[in-house]
C-alpha cells in the first residue's frame, strides 16, 4: 500500500492503538505476540496478524520513532527456559497522538531515520 508522506497505514494506526490499550492495562512493555493478540481482540478476529506483516510494521513504526524496542535480558529468558523476547514500548510521541486523535485514520508526525526505505 502506498502512503501519503506523514500518514500511517491502518495497520500501523491499529498497532499504536493496541499498544496504547496494553499500556492502559499496565503493560508498558510488550512483545510481538502480545501485540498480535491485542490487535485481533480489538478487531474482533480470531486470526492473528501474519508474521511478516506484523514484524515489518513494527520495524517501520520503530523507524518512525513511534515505538522503541529492546532485547530482553537473556538471563530472564534462560531462567524461564524460552527464547528471548524483543520488548516494545510506545513512545510519548505516539501516545500523545493516539490520545488526541479520533479513532479513524490518523495523521501522525513521522521522524524518519536516514536511509530508511519508505514502506
Amino acid at each position, binding site marked *: 500500500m502506498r502512503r501519503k508522506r506523514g500518514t500511517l497505514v491502518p495497520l500501523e494506526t491499529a498497532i499504536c492503538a493496541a499498544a496504547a490499550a496494553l499500556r492502559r492495562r499496565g503493560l508498558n512493555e510488550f512483545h510481538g*505476540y502480545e501485540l498480535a493478540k491485542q490487535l485481533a481482540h480489538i478487531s474482533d478476529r480470531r486470526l492473528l496478524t*501474519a508474521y*511478516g*506483516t506484523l514484524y*515489518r510494521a513494527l520495524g517501520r513504526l520503530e523507524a518512525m520513532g513511534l515505538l522503541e524496542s529492546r532485547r530482553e535480558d537473556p538471563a530472564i529468558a534462560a531462567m524461564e527456559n524460552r*527464547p528471548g*523476547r*524483543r520488548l516494545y514500548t510506545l513512545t510519548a510521541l505516539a501516545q500523545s497522538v493516539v490520545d488526541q486523535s479520533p479513532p479513524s485514520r490518523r495523521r501522525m508526525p513521522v521522524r524518519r531515520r536516514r536511509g530508511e526505505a519508505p514502506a
Partner: protein
Amino acid sequence: MTRVAEFVAACVRRWTRIYTWGLPPAVREARCQDIESDLWESAHDPDVTEAELATQMVMRLISGIADDVAWRVAQVSLAKSITLRLVPAAVILCMLLLFAAVAPLTTNVPDVPEPPTGARQMQTVIPDPPPPPPPPGAVTASAPTFQYGRTSYTVVTDGRLPVAIKEVQPIYPPIAVAAGLEGQVVVRARINEAGGVTDAQVAPDGILGQSAIQAIRRWEFAVAGNATLRPALLTVRVHFGGSQ
C-alpha cells in the same frame, strides 16, 4: 504441541531462514529471534487450542510471505545504499593514506644524517653546541653539504617521559640561506602511543616552518623499559641561522 503444529513451526523457521539469507548477520539473527519468540509464545498460549495453533501458524505464515519478501527487498536496498555511501568514502580514505605515505618520499628533502640517539631524562632537551667552524684553508669535501636548524624540544605527558630515539634534523633550505632568511619557528605536535609524531603545526609558517615540520614529523619516541608510551604533547623550537 501436536506433530502437525511442530511441522508448521519448522516450516516457519525454515522460511525465515530462507528470506533472511544473505542479509547482515545481526539483521538476520534479530528477525529469526523475533519469529522464534513468537512461535514459543503462541505454542504456550493457554487461550489457543492445539487444533487452532497449527491453523494460526499456517495462515500467519502464508499471508505474511509478501511482506516478508518486501521487507527483505527493503533491507537489501538499505544495505546497498550504505555500501554505495561507504565505498567512495573508503576510496577517498585510501587515497589520502596513500598520499600521506608517499608524500614524504617524493619531497626533495635529501636524506639527512641521523643524529646521535640516546635516552635523555630531561624534559627539555637542548642540543649540543654546533661544531666549531673549520679552520681557514681547510679542504672542503666535494659532496654537497647542508646546514641544519638547531632544535630543542619539550615533552609534556602524564605518563612516563618519552625520549626521542630518532631526531631528523631540519634542513636549513639553501634558498633561505642564500636569501639571508633566519629565525626561530615553533612546532607543536602530539606523540602517539606508537611513538610517532602526529598533528604537527608550525608557527610561523613559511619556508623555514615547512622544513622544520617535515623533519619533526619523522621523529620517533619511546619510553624506557616495558612501560607503555602514553600520548604526549611535543613542542620543538627550531632555530635557523645565527651561529650555523
